């Protein structure tokens, strides 16, 4: 009866429900300051999860996101120092984005032309990228970037933290891309039923490579924002993002088998994860619970989704 309505907005309802519970349990939750923190924290996850959403939509996965983030930011790090001319900063950013897209492209090429399973390829890439990052950094940390750069991580525009704005733009653009462009339809088409897409003349290799390249690119973007916030770059960062991005997408309703789900759902999923983590912090629940809660959220979300859709 009103079950279809519940199904459609179930995630938003869940998010609001969780917020309500936390707000009741902790008076500090609903402060502007805290909510801003939540949104800013969610921004990083959201951007990466957006890329993950696209790979999952074509029934793929990208496990290399954390490592590529580390590698590309480390490569860019030296260019961001304040004592260098500002053109170097732009160069560094370009390098990061370019290398990110390159690694994504390599993922896509291996999956398409070597016919290897996606998680095996991206897992291997995860090792390779992380290793290269370590090699490049020799265990050092680069910190102290230009103000023009760190602004993107710590600054605000019109009172809103910049990462949130960037995330909003990224989500918006991805949303528009997926919903209103041919490319978006090709993604859904290939993910929904590959054989049908082939008969319809869609190019599976081209789309696959583009999607993985996009994922690499977007991950580097998130990485740049991240180190801008940290004001430091080292080779170890970013490991937690893989699980979080997959969790955000899964909770957000992106089907692992492809072809189903909206990037807006991913946003809600990322928010749910961040709110849960924030809530646990406020309630002084040890951070050791966080991983468990993330895992539980994934399982609950997919099982519930399956159950609800079988009722529809």
């Amino acid at each position, binding site marked *: 009866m009103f079950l279809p309505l519940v199904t459609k907005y179930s995630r938003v309802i869940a998010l609001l429900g969780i917020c309500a519970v936390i707000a009741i349990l902790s008076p500090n939750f609903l402060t502007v300051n805290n909510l801003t923190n939540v949104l800013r924290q969610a921004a990083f996850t959201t951007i990466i999860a957006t890329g993950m959403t696209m790979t999952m939509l074509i029934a793929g996965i990208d496990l290399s996101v954390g490592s590529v983030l580390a590698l590309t930011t480390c490569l860019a790090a030296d260019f961001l120092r304040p004592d260098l001319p500002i053109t170097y900063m732009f160069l560094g950013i370009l390098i990061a984005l370019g290398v990110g897209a390159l690694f994504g492209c390599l993922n896509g090429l291996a999956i398409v032309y070597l016919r290897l399973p996606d998680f095996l390829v991206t897992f291997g890439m995860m090792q390779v990228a992380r290793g290269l990052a*370590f090699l490049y950094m020799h265990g050092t940390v680069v910190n102290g970037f230009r103000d023009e750069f760190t602004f993107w991580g710590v600054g605000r525009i019109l009172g809103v933290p910049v990462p949130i704005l960037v995330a909003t733009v990224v989500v918006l653009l991805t949303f528009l891309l997926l919903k209103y462009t041919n490319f978006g339809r090709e993604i859904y088409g290939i993910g929904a039923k590959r054989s049908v897409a082939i008969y319809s003349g869609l190019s599976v290799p081209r789309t696959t490579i583009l999607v993985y390249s996009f994922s690499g690119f977007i991950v580097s973007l998130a990485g740049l924002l991240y180190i801008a916030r940290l004001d430091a770059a080292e080779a170890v960062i970013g490991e937690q993002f893989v699980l979080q991005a997959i969790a955000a997408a899964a909770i957000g309703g992106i089907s692992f088998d492809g072809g189903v789900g909206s990037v807006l759902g991913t946003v809600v999923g990322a928010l749910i994860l961040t709110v849960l983590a924030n809530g646990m912090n406020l309630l002084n629940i040890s951070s050791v619970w966080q991983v468990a809660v993330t895992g539980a959220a994934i399982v609950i979300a997919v099982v519930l989704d399956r159950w609800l859709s079988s009722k529809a």
Partner: protein
Amino acid sequence: MTAENNSQGRNQTLPSFFRRIPGNIYAIALLLFVFRFTSPEFLNLSNLLNIVQQGSILTIVSIGSFLAIVSHGIDLSLGAIVGLAGVVAALAMNAGLGIGPACLLALLAGAIFGAVNGFVIARTYINPFIVTLGMMGIGEGLALVLAKGSTVSAGNPVFKLLGGGNLGLLPVAALISICCYLIFRFVLKRTALGTHIYAIGGNEEAAILSGINAHRIKLVVYSFNGLLAGLAGIVMASRLGAANPSQGIGIEFDGIAAAVVGGASLAGGRGSIWGTLGGAVIIAILRNGLNMAGLPMALQMVILGLIIMAIVTIDSLRN
């Protein structure tokens, strides 16, 4: 890709045996040969024993990876269970339980965890990747919570024999591992369950039409996984003398690589348990050899990642 798992007839076993196992043995021989030059102590007995001991944990876990893959599934939660079981065992011993009961408890914990995996996967038909991914988080989290975020000591000297001791020349851990392989080879070859696991993975529809209970099989497979990962966790905690809740992180991927390198197909229904052992040994040798060659950890990671991808590529091109 062969299915030497099932043939008794000499004619059948011999050619397939040649095709798969020696492929791995050649690789192992090659690696041993190469690493001999990169570091003088590589072929020392002590180092080889080291490899065996370190690799034992991976080999045990790899059985679980193999079982899941053969049933056309996958298990990403193995590493988390390794950590969880180690913590459970250590805590139990510290609480006064004897070694035996403590280990039993840890194994039980692993098996139950795996059973939950199996139950959800069998009932809901949700992709095992995402289910075990979520359970991985839950398992890791549970381990962290129980261990209060730090390492739990497990210093009992008798306990430490399991992972660190030797029976004569052979490390106990290796013996445990070999036992597991023998047991599970027996199960896969001699019991109906084994046949049915291959059937579910090879052609689930046909299996169901033949009256096989797919739900039960999947439940059993993932429960076994939990059990094996639990055992590996106990051995690991024993070796280190302490249980670190995150000690197993990442091992599930090595396990998958071991199974795939060993000839299992990710599409299910095919593969040899001895091949998996070979694959696990290859990975263990690679890790040790790269280490001994004095390469920076980072370069090791890169090379390992590339080599595994290369092996899998060659394998898939051969088919």
